[in-house]
Every structure is written in C-alpha cells, then in structure tokens.
C-alpha cells in the first residue's frame, strides 16, 4: 500500500486541472433532462472530446488516452473540482462502451466506440419494460429474425435520456418461445429508425428526463447484435456489473457534494438542528470512505483482480450516502428548501439533487435487489 501519488500522477492531475479551468463552463448548464439543456450537455461532451478527455481509460484507437483506473479517478476528481457538467453520455461511455469492448466485434468497436468517445452518439439504455423492472428476465419485447435483419416489436420504459438521445441498447427476445433468461439478445438500435416512437415521461422534478419507447416493426441489422443470439442475458449482466461497479458513480461526485454541504452548514450553523452537525460530518466521512474503497478496488483491478458481487456493496453505499447528504441539506435549508429557485436565481441545486438522489436506490438494480445479491452471493444464504 502506497497512498502517495507518483510524480507522473501529480503531473497528470495538473494537466487535467489546467484544461478544466480553461474549458469547463463557468455557469451551470440547463438540466440535461430538458431539450435545451440536453443540447448544451452534448456540446460540452464534444468539447471534452476535442481535448481527448471523452473517455480517458479507453485505448487511443477509440478516441481514449489509454490511462489506468487511478488516473481515471484523478481525472474525475479534477472534473468535479472544476464543477463540470454531468455526463449526458454516461450510458454510452460507462455501460455500453465496456460491454462493446468486451463482447463486440472489431467492426462494432470501430463503428460505435469512437463516436461514443467523441460525443457524437448519445446512448439510452432500454432494458426495463412496464412488466419487467426488477424482474428483468420477464422481458417480452421481441426481435424476430428476418434475413439479415431483426424486426423489433414491443415497449420499453423509464429509459434515461431516450427522449433526446441518438441510439439505444436493450434486451429483446429473439426466440419467441423462450422463457426468462434464455432466448434474449443484446441489440443496438437507432432511436430515429422508422417505427420507433418515443413518449417522454415527466420525472419527479417535472422534466421529461426519460421516455417510454414503442417499437412498431422496427428493422435493425443483425450486425447490431452484441455477442451471440440468445446470449443477451450474460452480456447484460456484465453491463449491469459495470453499472453498479466502479465507473457509474465516481467518488469525486460525492466528495463535491459533501464539501458543498459543509459550506452550507457553516453558512446556517446558527439555526441548524443539533443532529445536523453530525449528519454533515457523516456525509464527509462516507464520501471519503467511498473514495478509499474505490481506490482500493481500482488498485485491485489493476493488479489483475476482479470486482464481482462486491459491486452491490458499492451501489448501496453510494446511493444511500447521496440521499442522506441531500436530505441533510434540505433540512438545513428549512423553509427555503421547497423553493425551486433559491434567491430568485439558479435552480435550487439541493432540491434538484435531493430529488435525483431518491432514484439512486431504485435504478441500476434496486437496493433491495442488491441486498439479495449480497446475502446470496457474498454471504451464501439460501435463495
């Protein structure tokens, strides 16, 4: 264990910091859950790519920098330190990207990874269906083979960013007689293809952040299938692993929130409830603990190790610390917490943040499902 950064790592941090200071937007963008904000965020994604910062851990051949996970963590720290915007392309770069890297053909890698890293293809994830949320194996949407195409019919829902995104990836039943986990395939589709209808769904905050997707005999080339026909579940589980695991939520995001919370507490200390003081400290402690753990996991992976069901520990920890930190902020704000615009100006980031934090324990596999995984796979309790 050596917790000091190397000279190269420090130099890298300085490089990221300088670029971010020069390029990160000085004023917050409009939320990416609205069309205007979405396009602002895509602009930012392209600017990042112009500096080759789109996805630093990817090989240079796909628009990355070939950096290791510790460098990625340093990058993320500087990213959040600069207050840079959320990644509108996170489904692509953090979920689909690693999946294509692991299971895609060379042709698929060339076709999808580079535009992803360049911010030219923004992705939506289309797994959930009205009747298949936690029970994802209950998927009924079909993709029926017709020559070198699949014909997709059915419905997906709660698909983040699908109201505005370019492409989607999802699981479809390629064997119509199959049941549960079998007979599913992992297919990429153009959200602008004929037969795709998007119905934006207003989220809790009122913005049309995610969408319901209707497929009416949508023709998709077989070449858009990742891995073999019927192997979709295995591939999707790998993607879900990326989602819960390391990359979806880098610790810097929570360290930034904890720092803001400490500042908020200092500003309203005089009227704060006694318990708030401890909750603020807990937010800092938990964000730090999450950071240490992430560095430990990154070190382990770099040393040839793997992250398995432990990813479920992470997912529970970050989602619950995030909710608690934002709840504390709401309580500190007291009567002002309900205002959508604080001081008549920018959106109330704590309110927006609290609303969003409520979804953390739901998406990426609800925390109840994660607890089942921990109990059964890590502790070995019977099903």
């Amino acid at each position, binding site marked *: *264990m*050596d*917790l*000091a*950064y*190397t000279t190269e*790592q420090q130099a890298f*941090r300085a490089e990221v910091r300088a670029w971010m200071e020069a390029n990160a937007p000085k004023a917050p963008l409009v939320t990416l859950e609205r069309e205007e904000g979405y396009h602002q965020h895509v602009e930012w994604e392209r600017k990042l790519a112009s500096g080759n910062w789109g996805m630093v851990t990817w090989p240079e051949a796909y628009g990355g920098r070939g950096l290791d996970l*510790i460098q990625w*963590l340093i990058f*993320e*720290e*500087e*990213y*959040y*330190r600069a207050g840079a915007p959320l990644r509108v392309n996170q489904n692509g770069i953090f979920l689909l990207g690693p999946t294509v890297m692991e299971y895609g053909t060379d042709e698929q890698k060339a076709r999808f990874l580079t535009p992803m890293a360049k911010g030219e293809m923004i992705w939506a994830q289309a797994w959930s269906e009205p009747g298949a949320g936690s029970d994802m194996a209950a998927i009924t949407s079909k993709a029926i083979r017709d020559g070198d195409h699949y014909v997709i019919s059915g419905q997906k829902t709660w698909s983040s960013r699908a109201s505005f995104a370019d492409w989607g990836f999802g699981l479809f039943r390629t064997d119509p007689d199959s049941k549960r986990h079998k007979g599913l395939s992992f297919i990429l589709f153009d959200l602008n293809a004929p037969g795709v209808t998007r119905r934006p769904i207003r989220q809790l905050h009122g913005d049309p952040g995610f969408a319901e997707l209707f497929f009416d005999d949508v023709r998709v080339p077989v070449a858009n299938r990742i891995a073999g026909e019927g192997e979709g579940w295995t591939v999707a589980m790998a993607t879900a692993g990326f989602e819960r695991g390391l990359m979806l939520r880098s*610790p*810097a995001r929570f*360290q*930034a929130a*904890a*720092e803001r919370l*400490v500042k908020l*507490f200092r500003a309203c200390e005089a009227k704060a409830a006694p318990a708030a*003081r401890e909750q*603020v*400290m807990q937010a*800092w*402690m*938990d964000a*730090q*603990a*999450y950071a*240490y*753990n992430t*560095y*430990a996991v*990154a*070190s*382990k992976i*770099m*040393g040839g*190790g793997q992250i398995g069901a*432990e990813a479920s*520990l992470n997912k*529970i*920890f970050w989602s619950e610390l995030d909710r608690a930190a934002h709840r504390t902020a709401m309580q500190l704000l007291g009567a002002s917490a309900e205002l959508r615009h604080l001081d008549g100006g920018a959106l109330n980031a704590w309110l927006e943040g609290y609303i969003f934090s409520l979804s953390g324990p739901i998406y990426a596999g609800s925390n*109840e499902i*994660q*607890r*089942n995984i*921990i*109990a*059964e796979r*890590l*502790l*070995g*309790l*019977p*099903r």
Partner: protein
Amino acid sequence: MDFTITEDQATLTQGVRDYLAGVHTPELLRALDASDSRRSDAVWQGLADMGLPGLLVPEAQGGLGLSLLDAVLIAAELGRAGVAEPIADTALVAAPLLAKAGGQEAVLEAIASGEVKVALQHPVNPWVADLDGASHILSAKDGALLLAERSSGAELLDSVDPLRRLYAPVAAKGVTVGSADALLDHAALIAAAQLVGLADAMLEQATDYAKNRSQFGQPIGSFQAVKHHLATAAVKIAFARPVIERAAVALQDGAASAPVHVSHAKLAAADAAWAMSETAIQTHGAMGYTYEVDLHFWMKRAWALSGAWGDRAFHLARIDAAVIGGALPIGPGHSFV
C-alpha cells in the same frame, strides 16, 4: 498510489487467522470465562511462540519490524478470534511507540520474546485494561508519555465483557518515551481494527446461524428480512475497512492529518460493530439472548472497545474541528492529500 495489501501481508494475516481459529476457539473462551484470572499463560505463550508480540518490534531487537498497516490487519484477526489477552496493547500499540522513542531496546526485546506485557493508561479512558498482569505501564501525563515498571497492585472492576480486566488508573510516572497523543491515536486505531474483526466474526456467526436454523420449514436465512439485515451490516463493515487502512498509513507516515483519519476509522468501525452486534442478536432470536451461544463474547467486546480510546463524542469533536472547522482541505482531489 496503490491501495492494496501485499501478498506477504495477505499471507501473514491468513496465517494468524488460521492459527487463532485452531487454538483460540469458543471452547477456550468459555474455559477462560470460568477461570479466576480470565487469562491463560498457555495462550500467551502460544501467541508468543507464533511471534505475535514481536510483529512491530524492530528486527534488531528480535522482532519482525512490521508497519502499522500490518498491525491493523493483525488486530482485526485478534478481534475476529475474540482474543482478550493484552497482546494488542503490548504488541501493536506499545511496541511501535517504544520503537519510535528509541533507547528502549531492552523492553522491546522482552516484548518480542513474550516476557513483557505493557498496560496503557490515558486520561481519555477512565479505566486501565490488564493492569495486574502487566510488568510495565505506559502512562499519559501532561501531554507526555511515560514508561515505568508496574509496582502497586490494583482493584479489579467488573466489566460487561467477561474476559475484560479493568482497573482504576495508578499514578503516572517513569521516563518520557513520546507524546500522550501518539498513544491515543495508536490505541484508537488498533481498537478500530479489532472492532472490524469483531464485526466480521459476528457476521459470520449470524450467517451460519441463519443457514442452519429452520422455521416455517425453511432456513431463516432464506427469508428476505433476515437477508437484508445481514446485507446491510455487511455494507457497513466493508466500508469501515479501507478507512482503517488509510488511517494506518497516515499514522505510520506521521501525516499531520493522521488524527482525523484515526477518528474517522474509530467511528466507522464502532458504528459497524455496534450495528452488527444488534443485527447478530436479532438474527439469533432468543438463542442470541443467552449466555450459551458464543455471540455474546464478541458483542460485549464490541461494546467495550466502542467506548474505549475515545468515545463517539470525542472522535466526532476531532472530525468537527478538522472538517467543519476548516483545518483539513476537503472535496474532490483531497482523497489522500
């Protein structure tokens, strides 16, 4: 930057774990509980033969010269096995402090060979553990740390932990060997590591019990409520561990921020162990409420160590001064610096 333990460290830890699992059994704990002294020369000798007292003693004095990071890994194993002998205080707290002080070769050699036990007293603790069996005593006084041979006898207090031996403090005297704060930080860190080991052991006991106890025709561990209690506790334990390791490195390096990290470690570990003890007893049902299952030895040690070497309020106050008070840089980019 590399946040992994080395293969050597993993091997050593596993060795200690296996050894303790073989000799330091629940049956032994029960036998000690039934004894007058609650201490066993044979157990101490066994630990000494294994080389535990000398882990942090410099090689020149017959030890292994390991670091505080090794110490927390071993302390967790002592917690896991429920070891109550004053091995953590002597080997993992006193030894590195005396090694750092310099000029204490004779005591260190005697620690390494298992001849010497050191009791620790500090104003943050109203009581002193294992005073009667100690040949030496390290005392905090006016900010300094003093080493002396133990002279006077002491009055035994009754702890909830049947294997814990507590005494009223004695007058502090001796030669200066360091600072009182160093003693506090080292001891709090080692207590935190033991707490995580205790929590791990309780998780294992409760999980085993949940696999074997049947109600409604199935193992209670197949019920989701039970699963979720245990999974929740597992999350807390998992996230206490890296905090302790981070604190060990900071303290070993003499980082100015080390006390904050030690306090964080103590709070995280005590929270995890305390929560785990409640989860474990709930999982055991009425069985857990008896003196007959092993669980209570671990649970009571967890209560004891949670309050020792700085209670919740004490460590929160240190976090408060650093984080809310602004002494420590916080936010992204300040994970380690």
